[in-house]
């Protein structure tokens, strides 16, 4: 099987591209770090990727709101093809490509309406609002993965642990209907949970006060994923906040890195889904 081809975007204040690429490589992907201007100037083409990752960072400093200015550029700037990058991304997904937005990347995908996209109209349906605490937080969280819905293939039997690092991560839905639609379609694929595994509503288990304890959303096709926590920050066992103790207590220590596991699941899902549902060049993962 060929290694999946991944573009990890960089530039304009994105700052997690290096470790995101490293985690994807550890998971077996073939990764290019692509400056967003390369896409906008038509020097790189989405045709060459099966997965495009919007990593974490502070695009344009997050002034005017997290991810806002980058979303504007993607939605409005004219490319040499006289298309917008937004149109190309939408086509890319329609053609079977995958998008992953992490933290600031999730904020961008949400602003663009690419996720959760419950009605398929690419209208912004959720916001990542300022944390209820009013503060930026770097904190590890327990997370449950949905066992049904479009992201079921990313499910892990036990809750996983990943760090969040954001000031604006509180999921807010535009209206009740969208919220209900997210519930009905099981698009809320990643949930902050407490020690006993139930959805967390209070700080600090729910670090930002997100509605539905939501840490991540996907679209109904299972091709677009966004999440606030950082899987690339737990790509080796030695990145965990308690690794010395885990090493002593757990035999499987060397194999346990929840973020890497999540990325592997995504790549596996891409290859299954691609093989099952697609034909054409992207079907040959």
């Amino acid at each position, binding site marked *: 099987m060929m290694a999946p081809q991944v573009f990890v975007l960089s530039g304009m204040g994105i700052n*997690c591209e290096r470790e995101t690429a*490293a985690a994807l490589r550890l998971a077996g992907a073939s990764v290019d770090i692509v400056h967003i*201007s390369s896409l906008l100037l038509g020097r790189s083409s989405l045709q060459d990727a099966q997965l495009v990752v919007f990593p974490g960072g*502070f695009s344009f*400093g997050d002034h005017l709101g997290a991810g806002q200015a980058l979303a504007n550029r993607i939605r409005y700037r004219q490319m040499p093809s006289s298309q917008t990058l937004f149109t190309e991304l939408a086509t890319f997904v329609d053609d079977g490509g995958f998008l992953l937005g992490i933290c600031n990347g999730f904020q961008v995908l949400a602003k663009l309406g690419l996720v959760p996209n419950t009605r398929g109209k690419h209208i912004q349906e959720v916001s990542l609002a300022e944390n209820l605490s009013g503060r*930026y937080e770097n904190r590890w969280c327990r997370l449950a993965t949905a066992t049904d819905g479009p992201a079921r293939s990313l499910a892990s039997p036990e809750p996983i642990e990943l760090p969040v690092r954001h000031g604006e991560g509180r999921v807010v839905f*535009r209206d009740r209907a969208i919220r209900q639609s997210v519930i009905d379609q099981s698009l809320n694929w990643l949930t902050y949970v407490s020690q006993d595994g139930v959805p967390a509503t209070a700080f600090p288990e729910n670090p930002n006060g997100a509605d539905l304890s939501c840490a991540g959303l996907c679209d109904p096709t299972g091709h677009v994923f966004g999440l606030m926590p*950082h899987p690339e920050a737990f790509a080796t066992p030695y990145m965990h*906040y308690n690794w010395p103790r885990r090493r002593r207590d757990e035999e499987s220590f060397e194999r346990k890195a929840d973020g890497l596991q999540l990325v592997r699941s995504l790549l596996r899902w891409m290859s299954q889904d691609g093989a099952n549902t697609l034909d054409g060049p992207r079907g040959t993962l």
Partner: protein
Amino acid sequence: MMPDIVVLSSAPRDWAHDRAGQRISKQVRDVLRTDPGIVSTATAYTIQPSPPDAVLSLLLDSGLGDTILQTLHAGQPVRPRDARSFIATDRLPGVADDRALTLSTVLSDLWDLPPAKISVHVRDVVWLQSVLDDDTLQSIAEQVIGNPLIQSFHFGAAKDYEGAAETHFPDHQPAVTCINLPIPDADLMELSNRRLLALSLGEMRAIRDYFNTPSVQSLRADAGLGIDATDVELEILAQTWSEHCKHKEFRALIEYTDLEAGKISCIDSLFATYIEGATKHVAGKLRSWKHDWLLKVFNDNAGVVRFDDDHVFVWKVETHNSPSALDPYGGAITGILGNNRDPFGTGIGGGRLLFNTNVLCFGMPDSEKPLLSGQLHPRRILRGVRKGIEDGGNQCGIPTVNGAIVFDDRYAGKPLVYCGTGSLAPQFIHGRTWWDKHIDAGDRIVMAGGRVGKDGIHGATFSSSQLDETSPRSAVQIGSPITQKLLFDFLDAACSLNLVKCSTDNGAGGLSSSVGELAALVGGADVNTSLVPLKYAGLDPWEIFVSESQERMTLVVEPKHLGQLLELAAFYEVEATDIGTFTDTRHLIVRHAEDIVACLSLEFLHDGVPRKRLDAEWVPPQVAEPVLPDSIDHKDVIERLLADLNICSREAVIRQYDHEVQAATVIKPLMGPSADGPQDAAVLQPDPTSVRGIAVSNGIAPQYGDLDPYCAAAGAFDEAVRQIIAVGGRLPGPDHDLFWSVNDNFCVPNSVFDPIANPDGKRKLGALVRMCQATYDIATAYAVPLTSGKDSMKNDFHADGQTISVPPTVLFSAAAGIADIRCTMTTDFKAPGDAIYLVGETYDEMGGSVFYRLFGELGAHVPCVRPLQARSLYELVAQATARELLESCHDLSEGGLAIALIESAMGGRLGCSVSVSPIAQEVGLCAALYAESHSRFIVTVRPSHVPEFQALMGSRAVLLGKVTSQDTVVIENADITILDALVDRLARVWKHALGAHL
């Protein structure tokens, strides 16, 4: 005719979404004890020229904000129905504003106009529900919302709100002023003071003599210059000769009288003797061991050591004290961003910025003392600085991995803000050695990054003066992390592509400093200030040349690469401009348009400053050990220690710093099962496919300086070193080649004796001498090189006839190579049954301890470093680490053994049962529990490793007890229980003390 200007506004959709309004409301209550009622916020954007309607509708549809959270509309903010008062805040002309910058970029995406052609002004409007008088509104504006040094405020009754007036920059035709120098001494000093040159009479005379020299006059005549000096020339000299840039006091001739030893000696430069001297000594030792990792020290923006076969490690720590006293947020953010540019502008330039550190010294945040004119409350400084560090690091994607906070009332005038940055760079770029700066005549001078404005003029000279009510407001600046991030992305690419020959940053002194220093490497430079891109017109040439406007680098570019470099800059959306050429004329020439406006001999510029001569003396303080109460309630003492601001948890601060971005932080500042155990040093693993790492720590101990500054410096150095030993590091030795790199940063009060203005100046300088002597002694004993550093010599705040001076303070910031990150250690206890040992010797050394301070005492017996004894201990600990005998290791510092034990127990959420009898028998119970003797650790060892561990350590380790599965910390002495407390309770006390002040 339609006005060519449009105003758009955004506001939170409802009050529940208005976090900013809620924050202001809370702070008004906290700080001013006034009820503002409901506070809501709005933002007005004034755009010029007015965009076409189609663009406006896109902006209001989604471009300007998030319509789920905000309402967007044309025109000024709408007054909420129940608002009774308003405060509007505008940045002063020329102060950086990232929101305006971002909106211009957004506009340029919607509209066929480059961002530089679009002017955006952002105004913040705050509506308050209460009817408040103008004095109260002004207090809210200046003490809660902003700072009059960088912002202007309008306020009043809500119904009277009006839009902002258009910003007008003063109409000024750039000009050069000529200054007649053959004048009497008194006039020379008047000139120095009037122009804020911060030059002494001797220095002014040297300048006068230079311009009077016939050969200089004839050369200047050839250049079209008269006999008078130009303002450009004077400002260049003042900047280059400033204490900040030239370190005149650190390089002075000092007569040092040691009244304790009855000796008088002459010190020919503190820097050469003790700092550079120590590194030379260590370098000799390293050579004898055939180690070649020490690559570049002291003569570039940062020190360089070899990390592995492919990479070098670059490391710099600096201070940004004066700006942080005036505007804490701006001072701290420009401090950290400025320090980032040091490793980035070392050698060829570029690289990967791996981490930031910060060490902060503040006044007591709960101080009730009345403030002096111009002084900000310590709590406000704490909050602003913390936020600046957060934004500077987080927004650039650089993890803040290690730091410290020291509280002492003497920092209430000038806080100390130490910012550190480490980076990795390739050893070679296209065969060229990365850390070399090579320049040829004919190479182009390119300025890249932000534009130049009046901000930050006189920063170098101002930080070389004492702070008072008249300090120049132009020294205050706000950083732009996004501008710098784009600049770094560009520059790293340009350096990797071999388009840059070498580079340096524009920090203190601006172009004058960067071009002046590079010119010295090649033999001349010729710059045209009229080519420099400006934020706004009307700057005089001297202002352009010495402005410290942020986020700029100066690049040396071969002419054949210029075109490609400028294209690359455009791709990265970074402004880069060719402003001149390097020459071999032995002169620095500055032109403005067609005219030469400065012509200075490089030799005079760099070596013409007269040597300072200073006097220092050391008199030991008259002190005694206190008599403490007969019965001490140790449970109470320990809880008070845990809640002491100098001991309590830093979690409330650390959580808001991204300490994990780049996914390299293996030992994080907080670890253990509850992720709250404090760690001694950070460990980074730059490449997840290699186990090689870097440990980073900071040592600072000004509290001992009141007894003996020598011991304070020695203790700080030892602290930095032992924290690295604690995580698994190893001192340099013949059998391994792991690098070490230490930055020294001295911050002292004005130490130049003056019978009226500074009568105890000699003693202050004596303190500095002793600190330097300790630095030499410990560095050479440990064979640890100092690779870079800085001194800040005027940390005094004058107002209303009073002076607040910092205690003499030195920070040592250490970084060291780690062979295998999998063998590093954390401080938290790991499992019940593990044996707990105290490693290292305890003495009756409670002088300067936090314990004594609880009783209002200083004491006399200051903790001393015994470097040879410590060195052998560190080797034993390193061997124990290498053989993987240790489960946890925590160094002892403030609060002594009692606090270290409790921190390790809390970190592991495990109990312990220990007896301190073996120590107490020797030094007494209080010293056993609370003495802050250096070079000690609490370690745990699993039962199966105990025999091997004991055989290795011998008498250097004392068994205290064991880790338990109980949830209590039990400490006893001679069968009497001293403490039996729940871990959770101790943790609560320890964790909540600081948060209340943030």
